[in-house]
């Protein structure tokens, strides 16, 4: 989970108020509690802040996941080994010719994908831990060498 | 009565054996900048099991001098990520660990990169900078 300070450091820090908050710090707080979206800070969408914006997105992604399902991926611990990509039963079922046999995912229906050497989780609602027939699945946690995946 | 003997004693030395390994975060740092802080932080460190640290009175974050006939370096003491039974300490393979490796290969050309005997003691000195390892 990122801290408010970490998010704030990546913002333009001009307090221009375009996002509707009175300061960048306030916007950082709102980001963390998911009341605001990064794109509401229009200055950061401009080219010169591209790196910072990407960093912010990667910091916020895991919390976005946690919001829905309780899954948190710690990108700083992830080695991008892809064990979770291949081991997750949802990925196996949804991508039998790709993730299931160890290859790169061939479609967007998988939960785990590796981007820039770190895992990103999407389609989290498909996770077996949720929905009507939920089971306590550990298939992504057990194969992870560094404890980068967690459910809270 | 007034003499503090401890003040004149050198920090106690222990004989240890180091084995080296590779770490993906260190490899990443190496690809990016082998002169960088991140690479140094990961490389100039000795990882010790808790029992060894307790026995020698070391804490994570202390600095230690490692010395043998081949060289002498100062690195940071860190705890191993997982519980280790002790008796062996660990370093990531790097110019720091290599400065303790002997050139005696008994003719076979393969140095003992993963089996380094040396002495370890606490120190207040700074971590050996990379520049020092490549000055001849």
């Amino acid at each position, binding site marked *: 989970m990122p801290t408010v300070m970490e998010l704030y450091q990546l913002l333009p820090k001009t307090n221009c108020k375009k996002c509707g908050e009175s300061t960048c710090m306030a916007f950082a707080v709102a980001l963390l509690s998911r009341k605001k979206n990064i794109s509401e800070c229009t200055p950061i969408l401009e080219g010169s802040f591209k790196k910072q914006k990407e960093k912010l997105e990667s910091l916020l992604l895991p919390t976005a996941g946690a919001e829905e399902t309780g899954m948190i991926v710690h990108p700083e611990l992830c*080695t*991008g*080994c*892809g*064990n979770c990509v*291949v*081991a997750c039963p949802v990925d*196996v079922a949804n991508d039998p010719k790709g993730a299931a*046999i*160890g*290859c*790169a995912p061939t479609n967007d229906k998988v939960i785990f994908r*590796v*981007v*820039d*050497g*770190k895992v990103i989780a999407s389609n989290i609602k498909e996770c077996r831990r949720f929905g009507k027939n939920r089971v306590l699945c550990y298939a992504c946690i057990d*194969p992870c*060498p*560094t404890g980068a995946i967690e459910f809270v | 009565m007034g003499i503090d003997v401890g003040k004149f004693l050198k920090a106690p030395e222990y004989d240890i054996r180091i*084995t080296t*390994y*590779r*770490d*993906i975060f260190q*490899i*990443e740092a190496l*690809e*990016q*900048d*082998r*002169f*960088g802080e991140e690479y140094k932080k990961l490389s100039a460190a000795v990882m010790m099991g808790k029992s060894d640290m307790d026995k020698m009175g070391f804490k994570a974050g202390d600095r230690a001098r490692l010395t043998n006939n*081949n060289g002498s370096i100062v690195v940071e003491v860190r705890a*191993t990520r*997982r519980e280790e*039974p002790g*008796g*062996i300490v*660990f370093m990531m*393979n790097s*110019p720091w660990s*290599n*400065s303790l*490796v*002997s*050139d005696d*290969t008994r*003719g*076979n*050309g*393969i*140095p003992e*990169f*993963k*089996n380094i005997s040396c002495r370890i003691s606490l120190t207040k000195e700074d971590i050996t900078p*990379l520049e020092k*390892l*490549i000055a*001849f």
Partner: protein
Amino acid sequence: MVTCTGCALLCEDIDAVVENNRIKETRNACRRGAAKFRGCKNRLTPSVNKKQTDVDASIKKAAELLKTAKSPMLFGWSNSTCEAQAKGIQAAKKLNAIIDDTSSFCQGILIEKVLRKKFRTCSLEDIRNQADVLVYWGSDAQDSEPRHLSRFSYFPRGEARQRGYEEDRTAIAIDVRESNTAKICKGHFYRIPLKGDRELILALTDALSGKVPAYDTKRILELANILKKAEFGVIFAGIGLTYSIKDELDILVALTDRLSNFHILPMVGHYNMRGFNENLFKETGFVNRVRFDGKAVHDNKYAIVEALRQKAIDALLVVGSDPLSSLPRSVLPHLAAIPVICIDPCVTLTSKIATVTIPAAVSGVESGGSAVRMDGRVIELSKVVENNYLSDAEILARMMEGA
């Protein structure tokens, strides 16, 4: 899809998003691979005697130094394409030079045994499709070849292994340290003392021949039993194992002779180390440590560590490697005392002291070619971005033009 040269798995399924001739993002590459695509912070620039110059002048000076040397060595090669390696071998012939690569103090002795067919071996695809017992011995694949378990060995479903890793495969780690790989092998982690590989091999050989192993009887019998029952077993031999039994590799041959369903795969970090071994082997019958002198002579004294220790070389060409970083410091003073020519994409410890530096393209990113995967399969490399850097092969070709 492009190929990653981050390690000798040479993953061919990388999606590199290029924008304005720069790699903006990589998909499917692990952290190690992504770092390779991202590249280094400090690119090397051409120089002679620490003074900036142009590429042509630095190549010219390099040729001159090599030609005038009496006993030059051409070293590196494990991070070069097969094309560059071939050029290097030709150059060594022409110069009557010594040629050696990083396998000299790494997996060379094991790869040699594989090439001489002392061990049964197999492809990574065979492993994915067939293997049921995997032994990571002195090898932390998770950190060194990070996608090994996910792409090929443990997690994927394969033709004869359809039910997933929990049911169909058994992964065993033998190591001094509880590595990330050992963590994944959980119930099958065998911790050995430093240099304990020999004892374990002998005990297992005993157990497999019906004798009672000398120590830790219960666990060794248990392990021997798993190995015996394997339909298709693989020992992934890491440098931890190789270093430990480097003087008596035959005990490993003897062990695998007792395991008729087992294969050995030497684990290789640098992306084309096996390529160099194979290319030199084809040419000379040796995998490294060769001196050309009308014919090819192999001797341990031509190993880089020995040659430096004995001060037996008077010029050193380094291609895509950083001996100052990877060799024992005790042999480095001689290296620092002779002319060194460094061909590399990046500033390295060695380039800092080199007499001549020649910047090169990053192979697999800025130049194409081919390389040999850790299991011996030839893989094409991709050129992902365009720029003016010369490839290693081009630099070597130019260097030898006048020679």
